[in-house]
């Protein structure tokens, strides 16, 4: 057993990344199941293009949410921030009468500010993150509703502008927002695994006392993580409103549970300390494949939630079994290193 960490090559990779392998297998099984149920839909490139068009709105906020959850905290308010960002953008565009990059910048800054507020409430006032972000969830949705009076803001008149192509255009026939998603996933993977800041995020989630004792400024790291998450949520909202060519006040609502589920299916436990961007990405793709698969199979859309629920439970059960097996190994290895 002590030889586990003396393994080399593929065997070692499989052992170390077993959770990622399990998620990958679940993803492939779901794809296979839907392919067999409806071969014509799942051999058609349009199905995949459609998934690539909508999956970013779940996956992008889930990527930055992974950072928050690794620190052992939570953020529910991002669903409202997903509306706040594009609202600021839409109002700026309306004010100038053209789709100016300033609108995007102000939208992102609004998200950054909302994230900063969360971070300050949690670290400086000591409010538990669940409670603090329920408060800001209502606050920002309330602001959006009061400002818009419940009305949508059409953005169709700006659809031919270059800014649209940059964010939600088509590249080689594929939705550009999917490339943004992959780009952000790579950047966040590098941040988490190759940068000092990512290491601090993991340490804070794993053992906050230890992080403080070695001189890590825990509050500053948490505030930064929330600020980044706010900005990325606003970005996802901006992409969604551009794709739909309209801003609507309920934007973001449906993504809250889906994004959290993506992170959890991906193997990031809410207790923090561990987690991967790869897992979150696949977790989000699993949910989108289910949605597309159920709809293309011709059954009622009401089945989507049911299948989502079953898959979430299966994924969590698989993770639970892996972690339980791990506990037995820990006991044996500890004896061997005595």
């Amino acid at each position, binding site marked *: 057993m002590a030889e586990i*960490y003396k393994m080399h090559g593929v065997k070692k990779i499989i052992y170390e990344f077993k959770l990622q392998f399990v998620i990958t297998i679940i993803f492939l099984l779901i794809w296979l199941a839907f392919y067999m149920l409806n071969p014509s839909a799942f051999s058609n490139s349009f199905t995949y293009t459609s998934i690539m068009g909508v999956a970013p709105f779940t996956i992008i906020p889930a990527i930055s949410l992974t950072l928050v959850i690794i620190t052992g905290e939570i953020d529910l308010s991002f669903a409202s921030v997903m509306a706040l960002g594009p609202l600021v953008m839409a109002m700026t565009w309306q004010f100038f009468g053209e789709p100016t990059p300033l609108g995007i910048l102000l939208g992102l800054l609004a998200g950054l500010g909302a994230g900063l507020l969360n971070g300050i409430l949690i670290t400086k006032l000591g409010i538990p993150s669940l409670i603090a972000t329920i408060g800001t969830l209502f606050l920002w949705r309330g602001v959006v509703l009061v400002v818009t009076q419940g009305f949508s803001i059409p953005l169709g008149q700006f659809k031919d502008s270059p800014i649209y192509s940059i964010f939600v255009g088509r590249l080689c026939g594929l939705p550009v927002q999917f490339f943004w998603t992959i780009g952000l996933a790579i950047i966040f993977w590098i941040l988490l695994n190759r*940068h000092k800041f990512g290491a601090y995020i993991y*340490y804070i989630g794993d*053992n906050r*006392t*230890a992080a403080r*004792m070695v001189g890590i400024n825990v509050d500053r790291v948490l505030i930064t993580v929330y600020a980044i998450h706010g900005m990325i949520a606003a970005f996802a909202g901006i992409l969604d409103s551009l794709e739909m060519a309209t801003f609507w006040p309920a934007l973001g609502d449906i993504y809250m549970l889906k994004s959290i589920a993506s992170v959890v299916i991906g193997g990031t436990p809410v207790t923090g300390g561990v987690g991967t961007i790869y897992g979150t990405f696949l977790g989000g793709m699993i949910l989108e494949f289910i949605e597309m698969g159920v709809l293309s199979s011709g059954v009622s859309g009401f089945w989507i939630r049911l299948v989502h629920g079953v898959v979430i439970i299966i994924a969590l059960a698989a993770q639970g079994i892996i972690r339980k097996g791990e506990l037995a190994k820990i006991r044996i*290895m500890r004896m061997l*290193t005595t």
Partner: protein
Amino acid sequence: MSEENIVEMHNIVKRFGAVVALKGVDFHVRENEIVGLVGDNGAGKSTLVKILFGIYAPDKGEIIIKGKKYKRLTPKKAYELGIVLIHQERTLCENHPIWRNVFMGRELTNRFGFLKIKEMKELAYKSLTTLELTKMPVDTPVKYLSGGYKQGVQISRALTFEADLVILDEPTVALSLAEVQKVLEYVRELKRKGKSAIFISHNIYHVYPVVDRFVILNRGEVVAEFYKKDLTPEDLSEIMISIARTGRVPKEYEKLNLYKKASSLQVAS
């Protein structure tokens, strides 16, 4: 052992509400000296070292480190000044590999903050080799290690950062006999490398083999100081039992007590 003090704490007072945990404690550690800080529960041992490491701020008194005065420290500042606190399993991240734990908080990076992973692994390996901790590769998550091995990783962290003073707060709690011996060997290695250490333990038989000097705290006050060479473990045990019962050092040991201020007060009382 040098006569130069690496750390001095003067007249340290710490209150927690109505409770006075430390009542004007004077304490020092010399260069390349291992000090055993002993005393009963509630004596103020952990409070004193937490003040030295910056976890608590003293209500009164001053701390002098390498000749520079401080009213209070923070863990970050203490770390920068070369002080490392080793607590029973508390300063490690269980899910992360040994090498990350060795460099935790002081990662080697390029100027953009990107980690120099290969370099850190190599240095961690070298540092662990000096403590003969080579049973497991540096990639092994800490959760797989035994308690003694974990303490070794923490001491390796102190050695890697060239810490001048290592505070060991009950490092042998919940360890098997064999593992206690290992931890004691790590402490001897610190001494061989010219470092200083404060070793806190309830168990004088764990402290005795490795320390140069004992400082005995009782109810927030230093009551006695002895050189190890002047006492046997049984003597020390007798002194501690007497202090716990009467608050005094037995008469036959008074002449060996280095803490004259305390002894004169006791005689007066």
